[in-house]
């Protein structure tokens, strides 16, 4: 059948089952399979038709004249799909042999393209040529049906050359192999999409040069079947800008987001990825609204417009006005500054975004600290005023008291003439009351000092026994009048302590004078000093007096401001002495306490450090 090779068309002879019986040279060229491999194989398989189901030859067999003419899409191995016109004729078998089918195949891909292109051109050409981007329309075979002027210019083809061109011719050889699979996937699930989001895409010009491209695809339903429209943008300039800015952006401390006039993100640095939680490829090409809290997007769009009308570098706002949104939906206060970037591609805007939560937090803390400091300052001032007031009061009170006490004493002592016993007794009462008043004034002054933190300690090595005896002796006139015995028991280990003798004397004086006051005549009072862990000693005054009910005990040591009049009355005086004692002991790093029961006496104590050096100024 050598003569078959003389034909200009591809000729194939197949059996009723479709097995190839003959395959001329043109068939080899058209379908890409050598005759040796084609013979005996199912024709469907060689041209990519479904293995089962109706075939052109079975249809021809069914036709009254045994002929059929049909256009099929042929997908031969490793070849772009072709549109092929098949002319099938049933040929009776030799003798009783089964029928065979002679198939004449002609590549009509270009022909069909031109036809479709003509149809499309009448509808879309004007529209397409007006577009600034390169636009291409292709069919399922991957042939270009229509390319606008910009596409022709971009790829370097004439109008006639580009129509019918395989799309693959515009794709660099390195990625051409994967392209048919992408195309098939698109037609299987058509939808508008950006190609290769985040990946570097390239276009191939006629002269073999390549350019970085950004490509978006949209499905297009047309009279000639499903098509795809591709918008191709040469992003050489943008890449150049990127390359120019990338180093700069990465060096910036802030998240940098570069946005085009339409609000699309063109470029981000890795700080942006970290701050917003998006990967770079999730941001590129997206609206900048993605990074803005939902409620603020509309306002942002309006702002962007006004910015483009007057693009100067400026802060977009400060303080709490601005917020940004992370991928997880959380928001953070931001400070944003903008500058215009004029490029050949048009005007871009560079936004530096800084998370200022920490700064606001610190500002809040500082404000709080300032408020606290102000409060403390005021409290100190108040306390100072109180101390000054009390000091002045004390002075004012002492002046008249001086002549009351002084003259009463002179008369009482008979220095200005004879006094009878009754007068002497009454003057004694005047003196006792006046001295009580003086004591109150002293305590008040001390208490205000301790409460203002102004107590000054003067630690020194001192003999505890001597100090205790001194106080006991000073109070002897009082105790003697009441017929009380005062015993002193000091642990020999406590011969010396480091303390403030004045303050210790005051503490002991208060305890001991109270004990004397509340112990019935002929009663017993013990002043005791014992060791207390770890480096303390316990100074206590025990009496066998009336004792104090448990419910009254807690009130004894409270500050005079809190003291209620009832408790003060029950326990004589104002109780200032004990409140002062507690404050003094605490100022020395110790604590006070009381063990007592009605009818069983009381034991007032103070636990104090054996050495208060280093506590001056407390």
């Amino acid at each position: 059948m050598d003569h078959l090779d003389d034909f200009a068309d591809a000729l194939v002879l197949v059996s009723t089952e479709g097995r190839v019986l003959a395959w001329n040279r043109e068939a080899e060229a058209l379908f890409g399979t050598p005759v040796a491999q084609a013979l005996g194989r199912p024709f469907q398989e060689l041209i990519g038709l479904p293995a089962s189901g109706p075939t052109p030859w079975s249809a021809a067999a069914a036709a009254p004249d045994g002929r059929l003419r049909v256009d099929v899409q042929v997908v031969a191995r490793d070849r772009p799909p072709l549109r092929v016109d098949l002319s099938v004729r049933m040929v009776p078998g030799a003798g009783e042999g089964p029928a065979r089918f002679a198939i004449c195949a002609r590549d009509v891909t270009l022909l069909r393209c031109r036809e479709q292109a003509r149809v499309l051109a009448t509808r879309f050409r004007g529209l397409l040529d007006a577009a600034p981007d390169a636009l291409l329309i292709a069919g399922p075979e991957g042939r270009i049906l229509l390319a606008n002027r910009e596409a022709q210019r971009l790829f370097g083809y004439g109008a006639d050359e580009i129509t019918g061109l395989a799309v693959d011719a515009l794709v660099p050889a390195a990625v051409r192999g994967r392209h048919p699979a992408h195309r098939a996937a698109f037609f299987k699930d058509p939808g508008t999409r950006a190609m290769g989001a985040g990946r570097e895409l390239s276009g191939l010009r006629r002269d073999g040069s390549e350019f970085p491209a950004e490509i978006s695809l949209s499905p297009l339903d047309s009279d000639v079947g499903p098509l795809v429209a591709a918008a191709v943008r040469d992003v050489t300039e943008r890449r150049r800008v990127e390359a120019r800015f990338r180093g700069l952006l990465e060096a910036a401390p802030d998240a940098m987001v570069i946005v085009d006039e339409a609000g699309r993100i063109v470029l981000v640095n890795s700080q942006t990825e970290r701050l917003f939680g998006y990967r770079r490829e999730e941001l590129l090409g997206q609206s900048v609204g993605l990074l803005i809290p939902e409620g603020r997007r509309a306002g942002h769009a309006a702002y962007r417009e006004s910015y483009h009308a007057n693009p100067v570098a400026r802060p977009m706002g400060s303080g709490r006005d601005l917020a940004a949104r992370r991928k997880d939906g959380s928001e953070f206060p931001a400070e944003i500054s903008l500058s215009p970037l004029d490029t050949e591609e048009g005007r871009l805007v560079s936004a530096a975004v800084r998370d200022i939560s920490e700064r606001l937090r610190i500002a809040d803390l500082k404000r709080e600290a300032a408020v606290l400091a102000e409060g403390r300052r005021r409290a100190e001032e108040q306390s100072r005023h109180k101390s000054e007031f009390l000091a002045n009061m004390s002075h004012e009170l002492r002046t008249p008291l001086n002549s009351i006490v002084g003259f009463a004493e002179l008369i009482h002592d008979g220095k200005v003439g004879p006094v009878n016993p009754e007068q002497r007794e009454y003057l004694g009462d005047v003196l006792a009351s006046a001295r009580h008043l003086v004591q109150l004034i002293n305590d008040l002054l001390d208490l205000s000092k301790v409460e203002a933190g102004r107590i000054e300690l003067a630690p020194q090595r001192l003999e505890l026994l001597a100090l205790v005896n001194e106080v006991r002796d000073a109070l002897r006139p009082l105790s003697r009048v009441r017929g009380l015995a005062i015993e002193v028991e000091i642990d020999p280990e406590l011969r010396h302590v480091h303390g403030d003798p004045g303050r210790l004397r005051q503490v002991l004086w208060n305890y001991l004078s109270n004990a004397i006051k509340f112990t019935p005549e002929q009663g017993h009072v013990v002043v005791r000093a014992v060791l207390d862990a770890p480096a303390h000693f316990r100074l206590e005054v025990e009496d066998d007096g009336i004792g104090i009910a448990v419910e009254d005990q807690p009130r004894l040591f409270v500050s005079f401001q809190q003291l209620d009049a009832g408790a003060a009355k029950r326990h004589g005086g104002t109780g200032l002495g004990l409140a002062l004692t507690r404050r003094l002991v605490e100022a020395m790093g110790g604590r006070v306490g009381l063990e007592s029961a009605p009818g069983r006496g009381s034991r007032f104590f103070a636990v104090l450090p054996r050495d208060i050096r280093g506590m001056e100024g407390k």
Partner: protein
Amino acid sequence: MGQRVLVVDDNPANLKLLRAILRLAGYDVTTARDAEEAQVLLDQDVPRAILLDLQLPGVDGFTLARRLKAHDRFRAVPLMAVTAYAGDADERRARDAGCDDFVAKPIDTRALPERLARLLERSQ
């Protein structure tokens, strides 16, 4: 007549009290109610001691003490502050100003003559 002492106090009752106590103790007492009056008396005669109230109208006791201690004629005269300023800090201030002794009001009438006697003894 005993030794002459000058008492300076702006409160008439206190002045009267101190005069009474000191006369009972055998002193010859002159009194002044402020620094100016005191100065007039001091110009006439140098007393054996001065009892000085600190809170005075006009020139106060601290200032008067400093002036006296800066003056050759009076430097040796013992100064006893007798004052209603009763705090430790007040005593320090008084001593810094040149007072040789310090007695807080209300004074102890029984102890004061003794105290003055000791002060005079020390300054002999």
